[in-house]
């Protein structure tokens, strides 16, 4: 018996392996993300190898450089026309480099940079044992109030890990709005969520609240991402692919070579609709839309204030970016299904955010609810489903993020013995004690309230205009009403600061380092510039308002 014959008895020849062609990645086009992630990894190495005393400085330097470089890269790409004519799909269809992506990445990077400044602030807290300290825990692992914690404080430890964490988060956020398939979307979501969960837990003061915030944020975040994932699964099941373009084709019914399996699932709209709804839910959770908003107040209150500012600004930007892309690229064919639903969500968000904020007594919670209301306004722009809708949302996000970071930066300045004095009653008469700080905060509040000549008004006008032109006049009316309600509590704070007598044992206003000053200054500048002469940025947003498919 021949060998082959023998072989053939118990073996069979496998098919010759066709070689997998290695993926080609356009590194230059995704440079911003790569820079940031790379810097983050470097940051970890820094934690490992750089002596403790130097870490803070190295980390700050590293992150700043990375963000600036990344931003430069974004600008270069935009200048290279990748936002408009040259825009395209890169990295094997994983990422899209187009106008919205670049615009939002730019916004995220800038706000991230400003946020890093507030992270690095070390003049606000009184020196502990001769060490300048920032607003992050000396040693997150040590139990609050325990020996080890005091030891850590005495040793002058600081959690410099926040910087690489922040960089990872930013990296994820950069990917999120440019993700071009559902898998990338999910991964990006996790990549920027997980560091945020951790950063929430790192407050130096009020650590119990900080940890509680982290737990809530983590559990609810994971919960929502599970829904998101299931939604992805269903969409995948429906379309047989996770790439946006592919799904869109299937949804629009313009898909070629339909195999029987696909034909089978394509018929099943339930998969599509439920899947889409679940994914929407995941994104709405991130933007803090009603009824997925409930984490917002607690987390905003508990997290270290600089982190809160960062989250409030950057997360919203990234999440809305992803939402826009999903709704405008993947599901436009479905808009008759999702628009009514989003209407409901938007209305609920605007009203509930404004109404509940009225009775808040903690400034951070107040701002949390105001951010919910603003999410509602932005949703109104999203619903427009017109190019104007896109550009108005982009503009609004840009305007909003800087005001937010600035506002929270001001919150970090008002302190008493127990750290930041966030209870509103403590803010009474601030205008008498330090008119400048009060005035700046008033500017931010007026911007939130959408008073003309502030960026808030320009943004609000843009989204409402888009909504009205998109046939959502009713939304505009609701939006107007809720901004009227919202105006009430912004005014309340101003009344408190300027018209009520200062309390004898009131808080003091710490004089910050140039870092925080920059953060606040940028906030004010952007607020006024976008309020008085927004045209340039509106043009920018208009140019950037075309998605690539």
């Amino acid at each position, binding site marked *: 018996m021949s060998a082959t014959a023998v072989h053939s008895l118990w073996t069979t020849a496998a098919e010759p392996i066709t070689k997998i062609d290695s993926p080609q990645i356009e590194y230059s086009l995704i440079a911003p993300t790569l820079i940031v992630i790379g810097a983050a990894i470097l940051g970890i190495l820094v934690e490992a190898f750089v002596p403790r005393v130097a870490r803070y400085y190295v980390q700050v330097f590293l992150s700043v450089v990375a963000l600036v470089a990344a931003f430069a890269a974004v600008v270069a790409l935009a200048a290279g026309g990748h936002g408009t004519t040259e825009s395209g799909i890169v990295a094997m269809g994983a990422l899209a480099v187009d106008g919205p992506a670049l615009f939002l990445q730019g916004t995220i990077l800038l706000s991230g940079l400003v946020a890093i400044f507030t992270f690095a602030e070390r003049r606000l807290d009184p020196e502990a044992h001769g060490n300048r300290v920032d607003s992050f825990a000396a040693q997150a692992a040590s139990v609050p109030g325990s020996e080890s914690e005091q030891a850590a404080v005495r040793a002058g430890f600081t959690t410099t890990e926040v910087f690489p964490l922040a960089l990872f988060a930013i990296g994820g956020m950069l990917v999120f709005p440019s993700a071009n398939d559902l898998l990338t979307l999910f991964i990006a979501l996790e990549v920027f969520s997980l560091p945020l969960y951790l950063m929430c837990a790192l407050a130096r003061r009020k650590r119990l609240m900080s940890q509680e915030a982290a737990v809530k944020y983590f559990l609810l975040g994971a919960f929502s991402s599970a829904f998101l994932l299931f939604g992805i699964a269903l969409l995948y099941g429906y379309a047989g692919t996770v790439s946006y373009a592919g799904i869109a084709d299937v949804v629009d019914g313009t898909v070629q070579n339909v195999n029987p399996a696909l034909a089978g699932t394509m018929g099943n709209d339930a998969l599509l609709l439920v899947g889409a709804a679940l994914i929407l839910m995941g994104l709405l959770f991130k933007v803090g839309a009603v009824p997925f908003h409930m984490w917002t107040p607690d987390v905003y209150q508990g997290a270290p204030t600089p982190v809160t500012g960062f989250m409030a600004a950057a997360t919203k930007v990234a999440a809305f970016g992803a939402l826009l892309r999903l709704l405008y690229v993947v599901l436009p064919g479905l808009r008759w299904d999702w628009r009514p639903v989003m209407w409901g969500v938007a209305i609920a968000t605007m009203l509930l955010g404004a109404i509940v904020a009225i009775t808040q007594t903690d400034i951070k919670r107040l701002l949390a609810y105001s951010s919910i209301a603003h999410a509602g306004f932005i949703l109104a722009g999203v619903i427009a489903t017109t190019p104007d809708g896109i550009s108005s949302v982009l503009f609004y996000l840009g305007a909003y993020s800087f005001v937010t970071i600035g506002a929270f930066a001001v919150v970090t300045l008002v302190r008493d013995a127990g750290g930041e004095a966030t209870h509103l009653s403590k803010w009474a008469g601030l205008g*008498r*004690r*330090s*008119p*400048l700080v009060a005035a700046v905060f008033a500017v931010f509040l*007026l911007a939130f309230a959408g*008073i*003309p*000549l502030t960026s808030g*008004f*320009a943004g609000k*006008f*843009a989204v*409402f*205009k888009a909504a*009205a*032109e998109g046939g959502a*006049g009713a939304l*505009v*009316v609701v939006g*107007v*009403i809720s*901004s*009227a309600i919202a*105006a*009430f509590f912004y*005014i*309340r704070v101003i*009344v408190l600061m*300027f*018209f*009520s*007598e200062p309390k004898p044992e009131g808080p003091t206003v710490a004089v910050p380092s140039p870092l925080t000053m920059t953060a606040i200054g940028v906030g004010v500048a952007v607020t006024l510039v976008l309020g008085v*002469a*927004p*045209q340039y940025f*509106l*043009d920018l947003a*208009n140019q950037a308002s075309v998605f690539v498919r």
Partner: protein
Amino acid sequence: MSFPLLTLTAAVPALGAIATAAVPAAKRTAAKWLALFFSLVTLALAVVVGIRFNTGSGADRYQLTESHSWIADFGVRYELGVDGIGVALIGLTALLIPFIIVAGWHDADPQETGNTRWRPTQGFFALILMVEAMVILSFEATDVFLFYILFEAMLIPMYFLIGGFGDRAHAGSDENAAAQRSYAAVKFLLYNLVGGLIMLAAVIGLYVVAGTFSLSEIAEMRAAGELEMATNTERLLFLGFFFAFAVKAPLWPLHTWLPNAMGEATAPVAVLITAVVDKVGTFAMLRYCLQLFPNASEWATPVVLVLALISIVYGALLAVGQRDIKRLVAYASISHFGFIIMGIFAMTSQGQSGATLYMVNHGISTAALMLVAGFLISRRGSRLIADYGGVQKVAPVLAGTFLIGSLATLSLPGLAPFVSEFLVLVGTFARYPVIGIIATFGIVLGALYSLVLYQRTMTGPVKLEVAKMPDLKLRELLVVGPLIVLLVFLGVYPKPVTELVDPAVKHTLSDVKQHDPEPEVAAK
């Protein structure tokens, strides 16, 4: 591009505001003089505007125009231009501010000393100038959006003026007063903000319909028949605009913020509210409601007229019932605004010229009455009418000026308000006789509250608390004297203003396609 006179007129007070705010805490007096200086420069510029304005029959509707692209994306341009009405009101504003500043010379001197950061005086005068700048610019704007922005933005400085610098003469404890004051300020802001936001919706709607905010472009489109608005759309937009203006004006039943605001604010600020800022509301009705939505305006006229009528009678009756001098004046103003609005919507040249004239005269007369009342209050430290009596015996000059102010308020012939009130009445009567006749009752009620006020405060036996009351000081005379002279002058010779206003009114009437009703017997 000619010389930007209008921009300059608005820019000067704005710069003044910044300059005043920048004065260090110690140099309080310098700040006052600086503010006064800038306000006077503004007045001079306003005069120049008046001179440069051509009232000839062939002249353009809007003159001294400026136009720059601003926010192309929103179809917004920085467009300025004035018609006669604008000129008149700019003049009024620029005229009153110096008096307001001088009258409020000591209102903002800080009680607590030592706190070097806190500079209330500088803030007070800076805010006044800021308001002036915004008001003037809002009278100059010929772009709806630009106007809207100013209409809203001017609330903020007003808000701080009301809430931050309350009347020291209040009933009750300090906290109580502070509470009332911030209540008044918040009420003022929220009322006007809500009005403004509803207007915002309408403004956006207008953009969706017209695609531009420039009055001139809209006028062209309408002339070319390219601007078709569905009847209901137009009506809704009209309501959106009108609501905001009616809150500002204020028109019954949206008036309740005014008495609080005027009661709690210092007298000069109260004057600023009712004599200057509120005029923006009535001005806007005349310019925007009628011009942008002629058909809707016609449609709404009956309702508006009735509301105005209610304002007239209601305001007067409530004025009679007040126990607080400043609140009384506030309700009187509500009654007067009723007349103004009635004149505007009577859609006759008499009515509208009268209304415009009324805005000017009411500004001056209220300023006169309110400022004297302020001097009175500052002497006795109480706003309650019941706390006064027999002042006329101890301070005859004060009493005399107060009487003239009251007589102006009841529009006595020979004083300016009579002319405008009669014009409004005639204009209304010509088209709506019944309403005109009912409105005439207003002149009786006006006499009632004015004279009751005078009798209770100035006549009768001298109250112990007022026995030592000093008469008007020179500074105060310098405030009141010129105003009274103006009242008499405009009462005897209103022609300059009417000539200024006439062409504008003709344009407005042609916008709403209305003509004065012809007399039954053709005059020979």
